[in-house]
């Protein structure tokens, strides 16, 4: 069976691209909800901003692991 299509290059880039979809949507939801809640109760802006940063930190965790997997799973120097 002959080769119909061929893809060359670095699969890790595609892997990271796929891995980044989820955290991006997640961070968007967290920040959007914060903006919505500040619009409803502006006096809570300080506390809600702190909570937003904490939410972003946890949601972005998987995106960072996505970048690092290339370095973990190859035998590069």
């Amino acid at each position: 069976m002959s080769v119909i299509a061929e893809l060359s290059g670095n699969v890790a880039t595609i892997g990271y691209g796929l891995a980044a979809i989820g955290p991006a949507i997640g961070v968007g939801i967290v920040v959007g909800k914060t903006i919505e809640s500040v619009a409803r109760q502006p006096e809570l802006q300080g506390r809600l901003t702190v909570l937003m940063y904490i939410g972003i930190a946890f949601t972005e965790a998987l995106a960072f692991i996505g970048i690092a997997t290339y370095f973990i799973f190859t035998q590069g120097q």
Partner: protein
Amino acid sequence: MLPLLATADDTGDGPTFVGPSVEEFFPEPVLFIGSPFEMNRIMIIRVLVALIVILVFWLGTRRMKIVPTRFQAAIEYLLAVPRNIGTDLLGEKDGARFLPLLTTIFFVVISANFTGIIPPANIASTSLIGLPMILAIVSYVTFIYAGIKKHPGAFFKNALFPPGVPKPLYLIVTPIEFVSTFVLRPVTLTLRLLMNMLVGHLLLVLFFLATNFFIVELSGGWTAVGVGILGFAFAWSGFEILVAVLQAYVFTLLTAVYLQLALADEH
């Protein structure tokens, strides 16, 4: 070696653009070559920035007056940032107890991040894994220590077996809790800081190399593109300043949050 960006192949006879690679982060050693203390450009920058931070704070806090001079007022304003993080999340007593840790983490991260934007240095000191890892390990050991000291027998039991969960579900919940608390916290602290700084630096290098390529090596109409890319480089540098401050704030904030979670009393 690990090329992160393939070189742009050019089958014609024009000049070729060579992008940045991971080799950016491993320059040649300059001092004490061959010994365990060999220092390359990045290590020298780290030592210099540590000395500068010590010098700035020493000058700002000696001969303090009740009515502060402008420099002392500026230092006080800066020191209030991690102090507010500590007291907002941990309360008065624990906030004061962990204030040295939070202040150190904040100022180490912010000064090491800033070296990525300052022209002579141009490499963020936190863009190699050593410095973020040390800070994350310090943060990790401190929150475990704080938790063990507060609830001597019950810290691990409460962390791994949260109360109020029906018994059979512990089979699922405990491994998740273990990985999330004891593995992911230091790993994500390290990687968040490292990756933000590494990617920012690579993009800055890419923009400046591209500007050089378009303006110097190609000629004619491409120079306009080069000037446009230089504009991007300036905009990205501004963004890097924001990211530097934000990453310092987030690292300190998360350390305080983990301490608060470790010190929390059970309902």
